[in-house]
């Protein structure tokens, strides 16, 4: 067998095992809306943890972070900081969100806004921004699968056919099994991922330099500026680092799927304990960085940094091992992608379309609409992945610029009784428009700051300003009044 056949066979075997586990998890259960989207609310602590952890390691961590370590250098360190600090933020907001969720029977982030601010258009707007922000995140995962398959096939299979296969598998997978399958497949995915990260993070520097220390010594000698900020970039310095870490760590739990995962927990205390342990999960990423930095000296001059990790793996290991890494990477793309596509489709059908346009729809019709939306979203992100050419990290940051605009509404809604609906609605629109304008006109970063962060600051100050300028509505009294009715 040719090396390409060996590595591809390995990848397909791993993906097939993953998908089979997913299908088995879905068999023997009647798939109504509730079962399909929230697993019938029957998840214990372990499954919740697996679901949350399964969302952390996406192709972004695998190929994107190493790709930036290769092409940008120092600025990529922001990833280690933001993932850790996101859990710190979660300690102070998720237990409170969970508390409210239990009291009002919330299922989604949009429910939070509709209960807290009593306005279906604000809740609908939250859905819309959430769904649009998922598209670059999905595009990122599909691009990742394309890269993995084309490198593993020794460039025999093009990236476009590879992505087409991925999108078909993804949609079939989500159709057949819903959220329960995703939680189970992430067990396989995370075990493989940790194994892959540690073996390449230690193995690659060892094979080419005799260890991690000598590798960094060689890099510090030949490319010293690559290891600190702004690294190989002109404008990603310390100001960019601080603003991007704030944007992404505050925004992490604003992704609708992460926000909603809080509702599945057994108690508020579970979420606090989760926040204590989860930072350690970030340690695996350090190994991926080792491999990415090693690639700078081993395979200089690649056209796209996102190719770096697998190109080095292909040079350093036998084809079957390239297949194992590729298979781990492919699952790492597909598992989170199914979560995203499922969350986005449910938000669209249940929280946007039904309340705003068709209040008389039955649950069955909503489920059908959600499935149709899965296909539409799959096709849109496939087209974007085929024609787009940005790096994986830039795609993720685009999504974050969108979802982080929910943060003021969530945090002030929890902790500031005076905050009013018009203030939150107006500032969120302003924040989203500022982010869209800065991103589309290629002004990211602006003044050395992340564009999404600037939009967030604008959003925050408008919320505070409008709230103080309008008469006190006392949302808490309105809630109390409506609750007693």
């Amino acid at each position, binding site marked *: 067998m040719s090396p390409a056949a060996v590595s591809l066979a390995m990848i397909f075997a791993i993906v097939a095992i993953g998908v089979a586990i997913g299908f088995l998890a879905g068999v023997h259960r009647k798939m109504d809306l509730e079962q399909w989207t929230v697993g019938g609310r029957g998840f214990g602590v372990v499954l919740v943890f697996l679901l949350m952890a399964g969302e952390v390691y996406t192709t972004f961590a695998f190929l994107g972070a190493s790709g930036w370590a290769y092409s940008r250098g120092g600025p990529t360190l922001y990833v280690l*900081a933001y993932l850790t600090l996101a859990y*710190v933020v979660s300690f102070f907001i998720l237990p409170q969100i969970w508390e409210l969720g239990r009291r009002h029977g919330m299922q989604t982030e949009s429910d939070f806004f509709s209960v807290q601010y009593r306005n279906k258009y604000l809740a609908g707007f939250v859905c819309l921004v959430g769904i649009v922000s998922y598209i670059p995140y999905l595009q990122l995962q599909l691009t990742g699968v394309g890269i993995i398959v084309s490198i593993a096939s020794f460039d025999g299979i093009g990236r476009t056919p590879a992505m087409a296969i991925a999108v078909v598998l993804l949609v079939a997978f989500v159709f057949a099994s819903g959220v329960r399958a995703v939680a189970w497949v992430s067990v396989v995915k995370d075990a493989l991922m940790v194994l892959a990260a540690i073996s390449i993070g230690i193995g690659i520097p060892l094979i080419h330099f005799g260890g*991690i220390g000598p590798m960094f010594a060689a890099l*510090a000698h030949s490319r010293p500026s690559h290891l600190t900020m702004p690294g190989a970039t002109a404008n990603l310095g310390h100001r960019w680092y601080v603003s991007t870490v704030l944007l992404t760590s505050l925004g992490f739990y604003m992704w609708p799927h992460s926000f909603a995962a809080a509702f599945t927990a057994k108690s508020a205390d579970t979420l606090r304990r989760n926040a204590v342990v989860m930072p350690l999960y970030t340690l695996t990423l*350090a190994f991926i960085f080792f491999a990415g930095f090693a690639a700078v000296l081993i395979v200089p001059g690649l056209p796209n940094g996102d190719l770096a990790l697998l190109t080095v793996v292909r040079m350093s290991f036998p084809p079957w091992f390239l297949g194992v890494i590729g298979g781990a990477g492919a699952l790492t793309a597909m598992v989170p992608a199914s979560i995203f596509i499922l969350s986005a489709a449910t938000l669209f059908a249940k929280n946007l379309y039904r309340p705003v346009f068709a209040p008389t729809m039955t649950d069955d019709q909503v489920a059908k609409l959600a499935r149709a939306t899965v296909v539409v979203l799959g096709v849109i992100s496939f087209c974007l992945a085929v024609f787009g050419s940005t790096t994986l990290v830039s795609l993720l940051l685009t999504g974050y610029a969108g979802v982080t605009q929910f943060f003021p509404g969530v945090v002030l809604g929890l902790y500031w009784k005076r905050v009013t609906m018009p203030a939150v609605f107006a500032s969120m629109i302003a924040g989203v428009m500022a982010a869209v304008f800065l991103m589309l006109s290629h002004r990211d970063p602006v003044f050395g700051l992340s564009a999404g962060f600037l939009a967030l600051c604008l959003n925050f100050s408008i919320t505070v300003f409008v709230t103080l300028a309008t008469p006190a509505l006392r949302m808490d009294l309105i809630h109390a009044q409506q609750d007693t009715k």
Partner: protein
Amino acid sequence: MKKPSAGALLLGLVPFAAMCFSVPLWDRIYPMLFGIPFNLFWLISWIVLTTICMWAAYRVETAQKKKARETR
């Protein structure tokens, strides 16, 4: 709804100060520790130290909850 205590909030600010705001102080290659550039080593250490901070914050929160229950 219960707000987080000031003690827990302060403990939560420590990782932000160490991993985010103080970046100009630690973003350098030397001294390399265990063969790893200083900035990378700093962040890896703070992943572990953050868990310790949050564990302390968790203790503060549960202690306060207990106290609140006793005084009631």
